[in-house]
């Protein structure tokens, strides 16, 4: 089987590489397709915050003194915060599994730029989180008397808190995905910090009821600030008196979420591994 014929179609010398953004969109579509076909995962991803909302909202239906608000509305805002942070958990576990089952290694062998992979993951997370939030809002409105804000400014706040929050926590998720030793251990390793963060960041328990040192720890992480931002949107001025500082501190929310986006990006670039540890 000696091969003497030269390859006729020599590589077109100036063949143009597809753009990284377009490939990122293509990855996002592919990832989203895969996500929605994993039926059991889809059901539980969406059911989890809903079940929590229904349980907490039904147990704690009291009114919050002097605000005209009730506790369940507080939970809607908190759970939207935690829905916006699902990216942390989904990517932290998902990428660890991708690294373990050869997905990443296969991609590394193709000309796909890593930026496109990240864009795909981030957009996929944005889509999933967005659906979660829509469902939570629908339940909040129909079951727990949540009033959607009518001012444009509140929705603008919602958009930037949501986008900064999702991107920041997705990047954090990509970074922590390098921590688990294997795909199998990933869900245990990643779920723990996420649950802890939810408890100290005002998702289930108002921050004002936490000991100061716990609240201080929480304020280093994005979730507390996301929840605070969402409370400003859905509880309005009446709820501001419930905050520790009697204000939603939106400027600080923006500052810290923005810092997490930048810091998360740096962390990703520094720590991201295509290969699992045992793969050298």
């Amino acid at each position: 089987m000696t091969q003497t014929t030269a390859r006729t179609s020599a590589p077109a010398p100036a063949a143009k590489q597809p753009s990284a953004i377009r490939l990122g969109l293509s990855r996002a579509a592919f990832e989203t397709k895969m996500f929605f076909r994993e039926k059991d995962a889809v059901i539980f991803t969406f059911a989890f915050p809903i079940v929590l909302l229904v349980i907490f909202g039904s147990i704690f239906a009291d009114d919050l003194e002097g605000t005209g608000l009730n506790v369940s509305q507080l939970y809607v805002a908190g759970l939207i915060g935690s829905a916006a942070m699902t990216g942390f958990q989904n990517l932290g576990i998902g990428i660890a599994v991708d690294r373990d089952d050869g997905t990443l290694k296969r991609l590394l062998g193709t000309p796909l730029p890593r930026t496109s992979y990240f864009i795909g993951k981030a957009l996929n997370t944005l889509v999933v989180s967005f659906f979660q939030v829509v469902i939570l809002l629908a339940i909040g409105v129909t079951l727990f008397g949540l009033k959607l804000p009518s001012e444009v400014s509140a929705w603008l706040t919602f958009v930037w808190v949501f986008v900064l929050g999702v991107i920041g926590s997705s990047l954090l998720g990509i970074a922590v995905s390098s921590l688990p030793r294997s795909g199998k251990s990933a869900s245990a390793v990643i779920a723990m910090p996420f649950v802890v963060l939810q408890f100290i960041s005002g998702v289930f328990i108002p921050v004002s009821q936490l000991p100061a040192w716990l609240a201080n720890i929480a304020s280093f992480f994005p979730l507390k600030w996301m929840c605070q931002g969402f409370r400003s949107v859905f509880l309005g001025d009446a709820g501001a008196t419930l905050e520790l500082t009697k204000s939603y501190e939106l400027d600080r929310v923006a500052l810290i979420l923005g810092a997490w986006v930048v810091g998360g990006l740096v962390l990703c670039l520094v720590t991201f591994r295509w290969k699992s540890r045992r793969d050298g």
Partner: protein
Amino acid sequence: MRTAVTVRGLTKRYGDVQAVGGIDLDIHAGEVFAILGPNGAGKSTTVEIMEGYRTRDAGEVSVLGADPGRPTREWRSRIGVVLQTSNDVAEVTVRETVRHFAGYYPNPKDPDEVIEQVGLSDKAGKRIRQLSGGQRRRVDVALGMIGGPELLFLDEPTTGFDPEARRQFWDLIQGLAHQGTTIVLTTHYLDEAEALADRVAVVAGGLIVAEGEPKTLGGRATAKAKVSWSDEGEHHTLETDTPTRTVLELTHRFDGEVPELTVTRPSLEDVYLQLIEPPA
């Protein structure tokens, strides 16, 4: 003859283990080159360095004229890699996956043609999860060749195949080789190397212990032949450089048919096993 891969003085150490101890290789454009060797002999490390997956400690490596230690997108789009194991991409169909990967390359082949070439046309609409191991392996190959690579790496491509699937796979590889694709193959199956490879290299202990055409490897063509026969129930074996003369003498002695006559030369497997035997 153009050279696809040049390796000079390649070394790689993991901790105390010298995985590759100074390898030189030349792989010509358009040939099928097989790398044989026991597990842990350094063949995967060598191939992964050529694929741009691993860094090297010392030596020079040029793959399609570029240093794989600094892989670029342009270079990646000219090679194809089929890795050893992969359990990824499950809930997407064969066609969706191949089409998606085609988008990574500047000059991809037609996805449907590639699916046809790997013999999966009737499975194109099936989700990868539903495929058998051998069919998944063909998807791996389809993804490795979708970019129209000049050089295709196949790492133990037929492990776990049944004999029929292996034959079909060989046909596929031979077809690619006839189209001018350079193929670098690692395998445990000596019949596979013999059927496919123009040249083979045997790696043992991090070094190349033999290199050449399968039929002449390790002096196989000139080695002594074994002539065996039986004489009144007793089995005789003679090693000789002149088997034809021996058979002629035996024919005279028995005056016709020689009972249980066989003439054998060392198989590739015999030569291989001798080569990889550690020096006593």
